[in-house]
């Protein structure tokens, strides 16, 4: 393959094309192209789409699922899956609001305890998966129900704050991420900025630290990683704990957005959307391959569709149809271009 006569080389072997191919095959490029195409489409059909306030809105609608999806990405990278993401977040959210209102804890303490509650679930998930060697699907199916039950028991099925109060009586610390600052004509929510910060941190940890490499190695081939000396048990446990931390932070973002503690949160939409975002972002469900940047793009794609379809007057129900098709396509494209063993 050392042909010096470039004119005789087949098209796909030429150096320039090789460069293009390398770029196209880079992770997250596929989802990015899909996102750009989608945004181009909607901006053509509606002049309200590509405006600052609308885009800021899309990101606000995405921020809770986005942060959930960071945790989900980590878990899926280890060839696991976390079905409890949404309901654990709901539990954390209820703990935060109830402790702040009923038990008189200071807001920051309540928030911390809510996050800790989610981390505790993460430890439970991680411990069972890593050391008792139970399948992640089954374990998190169990914790999904446990978290759901605890949420309703602890909140008595009430939306917090209870009673007839008008404007939200939640302490402002809980609502912090709903506050905005203005750039030009656009209001940017702190929560959205926080989401980007978290994604940047996740990207750094996954690509620039040894732990990140170990996560990929464990998901790729756990036995090979173990034989190479990676402490796969500890890696798995830490992944689920970090995921729990993400769910706790997502809970805080959710409270900031809805200004209530909602016992019905996280059951379907947020839960499944977190997995959808990961898959659309190009991460393989069989572990070891994928990026958090892809997940961010995947989450934004779902948000863009929901928003865009409403803007052009199409019923939101079509969003589910398109999301379903996209998920299947994303998985197929992934399989075809990278020949993964899905």
């Amino acid at each position, binding site marked *: 393959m050392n042909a010096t006569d470039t004119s005789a080389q087949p098209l796909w072997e030429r150096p320039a094309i090789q460069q293009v191919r390398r770029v196209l095959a880079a992770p997250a490029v596929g989802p990015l192209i899909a996102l750009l195409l989608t945004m181009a489409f909607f901006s053509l059909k509606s002049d309200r789409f590509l405006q600052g306030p609308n885009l800021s809105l899309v990101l606000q609608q995405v921020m809770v699922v986005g942060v959930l999806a960071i945790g989900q990405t980590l878990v899926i990278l280890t060839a696991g899956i976390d079905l409890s993401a949404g309901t654990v977040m709901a539990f954390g959210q209820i703990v935060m609001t109830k402790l702040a209102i009923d038990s008189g804890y200071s807001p920051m303490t309540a928030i911390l305890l809510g996050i800790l509650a989610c981390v505790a679930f993460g430890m439970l998930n991680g411990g069972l998966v890593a050391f008792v060697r139970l399948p992640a699907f089954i374990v998190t199916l169990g914790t999904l129900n446990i978290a759901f039950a605890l949420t309703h028991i602890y909140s008595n099925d009430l939306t917090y704050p209870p009673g007839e*109060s008008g404007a939200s009586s939640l302490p402002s610390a809980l609502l912090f991420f709903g506050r905005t600052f203005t750039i030009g004509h656009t209001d940017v929510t702190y929560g959205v900025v926080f989401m980007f910060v978290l994604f940047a941190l996740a990207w750094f940890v996954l690509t620039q630290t040894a732990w990140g490499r170990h996560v990929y190695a464990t998901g790729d081939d756990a036995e090979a990683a173990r034989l190479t000396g990676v402490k796969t048990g500890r890696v798995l446990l830490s992944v689920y704990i970090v995921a729990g931390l993400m769910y706790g932070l997502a809970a805080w973002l959710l409270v900031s957005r809805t200004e209530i503690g909602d016992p*019905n949160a996280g059951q379907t939409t947020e839960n499944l959307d977190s997995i959808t975002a990961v898959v659309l972002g190009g991460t393989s469900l069989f572990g070891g391959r994928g990026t958090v940047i892809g997940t961010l793009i995947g989450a934004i794609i779902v948000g863009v569709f929901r928003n865009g379809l409403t803007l052009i007057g199409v019923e939101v129900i079509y969003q589910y149809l398109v999301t379903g098709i996209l998920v299947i396509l994303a998985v197929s494209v992934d399989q075809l271009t990278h020949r993964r063993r899905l």
Partner: protein
Amino acid sequence: MRDPQREHTSWRTLVLATALLAAVVGTTVLVAAASAKPTSQGATVKVGLITKDATNPFFVKMRAGATKAAKRLGASLIYAAGKSSSDNASQIAAIENMTTAGVKGILITVADGKAENAAIAKARKAGVIVIALDTPTVPKSATNALFATNNFNAGILIGKYARAATKGKKVTIGMIDEHAGSSVGALRHNGFLKGFGIKKNSKLIACAGNGEGQTAPSQTAMENCLQKNPKINVVYTINEPSALGAWNALKKAGKSKAGTTIVSVDGGCAGVRNVKAGIIDATSQQYPLLMASRGVGAVVKFAKTGKKPSGYTDTGVNLIAKKPLVGVKSKSVKYGLANCWG
């Protein structure tokens, strides 16, 4: 060494797959968009309607009524619904997106009395009026106005009827509600108690279950109630699909139509037919078409004159029963069928 065969296939399939992805996505959305109602920019008043879910016949009828009213008044309707009767996240996103899409007003049956308030407040701040249909927000003042059945009254009527129908007999009551945060559920439930003449913790109430306002879950809830106390002979149900589910459970347990008194709220044509068949003994008929058309009318009026609707407008309720009883005013099944919806 590199396998040229593999690289060749990979390049081709990458191009193919990306093209496929773009094509299918584009086509799907184009087809979906083509079926949307034509919107001429600027002149037409846009009205948004958001219901709890899209499948309950009550909401289907409400939507039909709104669509008809919009057409009549030269406005255009954007519709959205949650995935279930407790899906708050979808409703919140819909409120935000409709506001960006430029609606003048939003009509909404809120899934939870409080969960949507923050989003509603934002919409109102942006100059959009929000009218609650059928279900009030908590507090009522969160929306500009409420067009609804007096649900408390509806409960009283069926409570009175149930009491009259079982006069002198020993009663054991089962109550099939929907989820805890439902304000309409609470009103009807408490109205029934008042009409029947008992208090919340009356010993006559053997069981209360969550039937989610749908047939199948209500059947399960009723079955569980019967396991707890097989002697239940009076059943309050939050709506007619729920009543049907409860009847299925009672039938399987060997109860007879004559031996059980089932009361409900809705007045849909299917439900009134069940009254005729003796399955439901009495139902409070409400008028979703009226709610919808009045709502659309109010938004168009606001768009044209700037006059905002306010307060509570009672869209009326009538008790429909097959067997009239002394002391309880009711209308005949014939009347019910003539004025039913669905």
